[in-house]
């Protein structure tokens, strides 16, 4: 890629620079010529992508001084740092990192006179779909048993507060993100894909008809950058992809990899029962659970999201699922 020159000397901050989305966002911005400051807790983190336009600064969204240092002279801030796991040992971490951390970033941006913050939220703030794909103005139909979704919703309320205080913030809401990148606790799609390739993934939940929305990581990054340039202050934009069922997901995987794996359809009731055992395992022994009841309950619902607003207002584009998945598979086959 030829590095663009017109963004030279424009300094932007990316929090969560070692995250699944953050690391690729850093790279894309750097390739566009921006002077990127990447905030991460460990500047020797193996997931960080090195580039001459990226400067990594050791810090934490919970450490206000490190935020001030990293944000100095930045015109824009991309806030992607979050506790995005399904489970963490200390439940309070979800609140601290996702809500207090976001508040810290916004407060710092307000004090330093940053032009715009793009806050990365999630479609999880809407949760399941009752009938038609969810759009931005739709209400949330169910409660918030999942800590990640609850705290990300509370983080959006913080954003609304700071917009009232005069800070320019735009929210983007990616759906289930997949793509080339590290296999982490927060990315279930990578686990399914690599598990299928290796032959260690054996099951399909329920009848496999449950539909979810899958967004390619590059689309999210483009959506974030476009939100910085073209988004309207205080607005939310769903950055989604294609709606695909579990059956469709594994069918595409089979076609693209050419590998035929035997997959067993596991009844939802069995998954729920197993998740309850996992729940107690994590409560009693502090062991990382494979699956939790609140996620088992979610398998009853579809999670479909409508990206129409972003397509119209941000010129957002969706990479077809088969194309994105094929790139993802290539990446894993090259790197394992």
């Amino acid at each position, binding site marked *: 890629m030829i590095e663009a020159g017109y963004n030279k000397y424009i300094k932007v901050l990316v929090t969560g620079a070692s995250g699944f989305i953050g690391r690729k966002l850093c790279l894309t911005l750097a390739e566009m010529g921006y002077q990127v400051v990447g905030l991460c807790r460990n500047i020797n983190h193996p997931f960080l992508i090195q580039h001459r336009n990226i400067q990594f600064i050791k810090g934490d969204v919970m450490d206000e001084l490190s935020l001030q240092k990293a944000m100095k002279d930045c015109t824009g801030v991309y806030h992607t740092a979050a506790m995005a796991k399904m489970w963490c040992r200390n*439940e*309070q971490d979800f*609140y601290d990192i996702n*809500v207090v951390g976001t508040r810290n970033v916004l407060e710092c941006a307000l004090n330093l006179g940053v032009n715009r913050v793009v806050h990365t939220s999630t479609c999880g703030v809407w949760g399941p779909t*009752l*009938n*038609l794909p969810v759009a931005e*103005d*739709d*209400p949330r*139909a*169910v*409660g*918030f*048993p999942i800590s990640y979704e*609850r*705290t990300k*919703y*509370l983080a959006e*309320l913080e954003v609304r507060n700071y917009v009232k205080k005069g800070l320019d913030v735009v929210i983007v809401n990616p759906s289930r993100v997949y793509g080339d990148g590290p296999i982490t606790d927060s990315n279930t799609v990578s686990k399914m894909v690599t598990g299928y390739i290796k032959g260690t993934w054996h099951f399909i939940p329920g009848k496999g008809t449950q539909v979810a929305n899958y967004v390619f990581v590059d689309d999210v990054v483009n959506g974030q950058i476009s939100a910085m340039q073209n988004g309207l202050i205080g607005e939310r934009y769903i950055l989604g992809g294609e709606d695909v069922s579990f059956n469709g997901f594994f069918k595409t995987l089979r076609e693209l990899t050419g590998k035929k794996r035997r997959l067993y359809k596991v009844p939802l009731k069995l998954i729920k029962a197993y998740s309850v055992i996992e729940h107690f395992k994590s409560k009693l022994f502090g062991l990382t659970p494979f699956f939790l009841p609140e996620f088992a309950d979610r398998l009853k619902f579809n999670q479909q999201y409508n990206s129409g607003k972003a397509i119209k207002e941000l010129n957002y584009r969706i990479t077809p699922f088969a194309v994105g998945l094929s790139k993802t598979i290539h990446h894993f086959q090259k790197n394992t």
Partner: protein
Amino acid sequence: MKNTALITGASEGLGKSFAIEMAKKGIDLVLVALPESGLPHLANYLRQNFDCQVFCIEIDLTLPHSAAAVFDRLDVHQLSVNILINNAGLGNWSWFEEKSIDFYRAQIDLNITNTVMLTRLFLHHINKHLPNYILNVGSLGGHFIVPKKQVYGATKSFVGYFTRCLQMELIGTNVHVSLLSPGGINTKPELLVMNNNLKGFAKATILEADVVAREAIEGLFKMRKEIIPGFANRLLLIIDKLIPAFLKELIIRRNLRAVLSV
């Protein structure tokens, strides 16, 4: 005749969940909520996603003539309802002297006066030859003495007494009245923060609004007198009935001291 439900306080929390659960059943809706509370968005969502008609009334129910205005609007638009869900309410978690007199007036007007007036007007509005339902939202707190909920708990005790009386008066008619006595519900964002910190049994008494709404509507159509959603909450009430009064007071005082020392 198709069922039509009038739901107050419908834009957020439990009221929103009532609206969604009713819409899922294909029941037409008249939703009442404060202006600027996002009611039209909710109404649109329900119309698009479910097979139901939705009519919105944006009004402040703490004002003296609002209850009458609601039924006037129904008459003007020639709408009739046969289900009333008295859900709108104002809570508090504060020492008595911390809130202003205006707050308590609004709280009592909304939780008590408005419930009484809407119920009275509803009984005048309905066709008594067909089945009609009223669901009054009380609180499990109405059964207990809970400090820092003094006025709220008292208004909910009122709703409980009022509902039980009506049930007796309306025996043998086509009007069925249920009392919903929920424990804690994860509704408002502030509560989400507070309930975030609860653990153990206390956490088990907190339910999601959609769960409460589903149990309540099921109970209403089964014509149950009182609906207490959640196993932990039903257990709590049984324990409460078994413990002698002096012991209860002791427990509450001890807990109060813990609250005070924080």
